[in-house]
């Protein structure tokens, strides 16, 4: 009977094209707006670390003095990062910051280009499970003894070397030669959870160089630098010994015991620093160090702004208004067909069968509205990306949405159709048989 009902629904839609089009449009507009906001919301709140979200943690330290910030800063100082790197408890760990440099090769045909650069430790790659296309990350020794080695991304490798295996070749960063040791495959976690402070939905960098070079090469910082007190910084070295915070520090702590042990380690570290005259706010050592897993980290950095949640609520409200409109249109359409229902009831259709027939019709209208809504959503996201420069990571219509949208549309339409279908299936056949 389902196929029969679909056939009847299609005939009915063709018979009243204007009314049906109005219903499809009403559903599609409501769905389009809701899916656009839902998509942005789901992309923002997506946890790209998957089942490793709990074991990946960032370190925050209450290094500020009294009467300064009233919450943990997301970033830590260079001296704290250098000290923490000596610890051996985490499975992997990495200090990092974002920089930027001009990139070129020996090939005069390849024009120099400005690229975002991640200055980090080798632990970055196992921490975030970065996939390699060619070669690998630099040796562990490079984290201690600085070496001019670089890992580049596939896209940059394509531009510089035409996509071939470039391991062993030289690229110049701000005119300094770096040897390529690895090329990573396409990898662009969204949100960019390892560094939301420099753009939660920015693309992953295409250049990775050793953190051990930072002090020597004085790389510019393309991220936030904050301080809780006035410090005169005359040169790069002043920054390295200052209380300015500008680095992220990630650790891989697979078990709860590892996390507890590392918190203990951090408390001991703070205690040591207090003895050296730092961490003067009066907080206890255990209160002065915090680990944030990926969820907490995204929350702390307000990756999903409150406005976006309100927008989702408003779009659902709008969908509800569309739903009420559809309800009215359906009631009009269905009641016009009450005489036919009378005939069908007289020749043997039960109320349940009539109800099913009309619910299938509602479902077909919803499905059409869903497909059109999907097109609206795709168009809206494309416009956001193309015209307003919203990050691509946010405007990509996720695969799940392609499947969920028709489902939501059908569900919404069926919700709106419940009452009209119920009214029409309660039709008294005798009322219409004589009058038809």
């Amino acid at each position, binding site marked *: 009977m389902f196929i029969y009902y679909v056939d009847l629904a299609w005939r*009915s839609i063709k018979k009243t094209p204007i009314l049906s089009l109005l219903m499809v449009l009403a559903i599609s507009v409501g769905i389009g707006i809701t899916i656009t906001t839902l998509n942005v919301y789901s992309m923002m709140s997506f946890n790209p670390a998957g089942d490793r979200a709990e074991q990946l943690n960032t370190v925050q330290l209450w290094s500020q003095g009294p009467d300064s910030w009233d919450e943990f800063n997301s970033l830590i100082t260079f001296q704290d990062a250098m000290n923490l790197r000596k610890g051996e408890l985490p499975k992997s760990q990495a200090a990092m910051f974002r920089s930027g440099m001009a990139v070129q090769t020996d090939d005069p045909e390849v024009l120099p280009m400005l690229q975002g650069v991640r200055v980090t430790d080798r632990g970055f790659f196992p921490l975030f499970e970065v996939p390699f296309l060619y070669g690998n990350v630099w040796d562990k020794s490079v984290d201690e003894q600085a070496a001019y080695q670089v890992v580049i991304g596939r896209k940059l490798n394509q531009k510089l070397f035409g996509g071939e295996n470039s391991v062993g070749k030289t690229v110049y960063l701000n005119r300094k030669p770096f040897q390529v040791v690895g090329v990573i495959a396409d990898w662009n976690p969204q949100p960019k959870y390892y560094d939301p402070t420099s753009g939660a939905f920015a693309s992953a960098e295409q250049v990775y160089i050793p953190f051990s070079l930072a002090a020597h090469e004085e790389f510019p910082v393309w991220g936030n630098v904050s301080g809780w007190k006035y410090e005169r910084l005359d040169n790069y070295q002043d920054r390295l010994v200052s209380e300015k915070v500008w680095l992220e520090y990630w650790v891989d702590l697979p078990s709860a015991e590892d996390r507890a042990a590392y918190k203990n380690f951090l408390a001991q570290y703070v205690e040591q620093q207090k003895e050296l005259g730092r961490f003067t706010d009066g907080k206890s050592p255990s209160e002065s160090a915090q680990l944030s897993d990926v969820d907490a980290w995204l929350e702390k950095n307000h990756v999903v702004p409150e406005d976006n949640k309100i927008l989702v609520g408003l779009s659902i409200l709008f969908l509800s208004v569309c739903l009420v409109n559809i309800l009215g249109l359906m009631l009009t359409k269905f009641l016009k067909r009450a005489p036919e229902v009378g*005939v069908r009831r007289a*020749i043997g259709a039960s*109320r*349940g069968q009539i109800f099913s027939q009309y619910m299938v019709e509602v479902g077909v209208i919803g499905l059409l509205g869903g497909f059109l809504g999907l097109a609206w959503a795709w168009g809206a996201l494309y416009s956001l990306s193309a015209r307003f420069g919203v990050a691509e990571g946010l405007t990509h219509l996720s695969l799940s949405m392609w499947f969920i949208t028709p489902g939501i549309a059908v569900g919404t339409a069926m919700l709106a159709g419940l009452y009209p279908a119920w009214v029409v299936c309660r039709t*008294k056949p005798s009322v219409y048989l004589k009058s038809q």
Partner: protein
Amino acid sequence: MLTMKNINKVFKTDLVETHALRDFNLSVQEGEFVAVTGPSGSGKTTFLNIAGLLEGFTHGEYFLDDVNISNLNDNKAAAIRNEKIGFIFQGFNLIPDLNLAENVEVPLRYRGFGAKERQKRVKQALEQVGLGARMKHLPSQLSGGQQQRVAIARALAGEPRFLLADEPTGNLDSLMARQVMELLEEINKAGTTIIMVTHDPELARRAQRNIQIVDGQVCDFSRYQTEQAPQLDVAEQVAS
């Protein structure tokens, strides 16, 4: 086959109570052709609606094939309508968007027949009414008489035990009315019980039995053999 005992039907509004049927008693035997006449508003259609399970009643008992249908739920009533009863209406009541075959097929779909069985029965029913060659036509492409024959085919396709016809010739000219009546007589001869509401005394006389409803009650006349049908107008009989 059909027995109604003391059936009462009251339509109520906030201000008025209308007694459409009062202490209505009737028994129809298998194979009978019963004509029901009566003035407008006498309760003929109400009786037909109750007989066809399209409407409930206020008091009384109604047995159809010894089944008390007084308290049937909607599903059971729909199943009985589908399997045992065929309807023919004055306005034909064909579904305009469906072609003839699809119209005739509708009750068979609700019965749950497979495609082959449906096709066989549809073909048979339309051929029986002389429209086998016009299966793909829409109702709007047919004359009134042809449309009524399609309605009869739809009623017959499910092989019902009895047909309820409400003014089946009311919208037809005399020639077509005669053709439809002849078709109904053939169907009755084949064993199907027919109850026909009509205003036409000529047609009523052709039935085996005439009953007249006046003010919601039955005035039952003696049974006539078709060949001995009286020449008197039914209304005249009541008056006498």
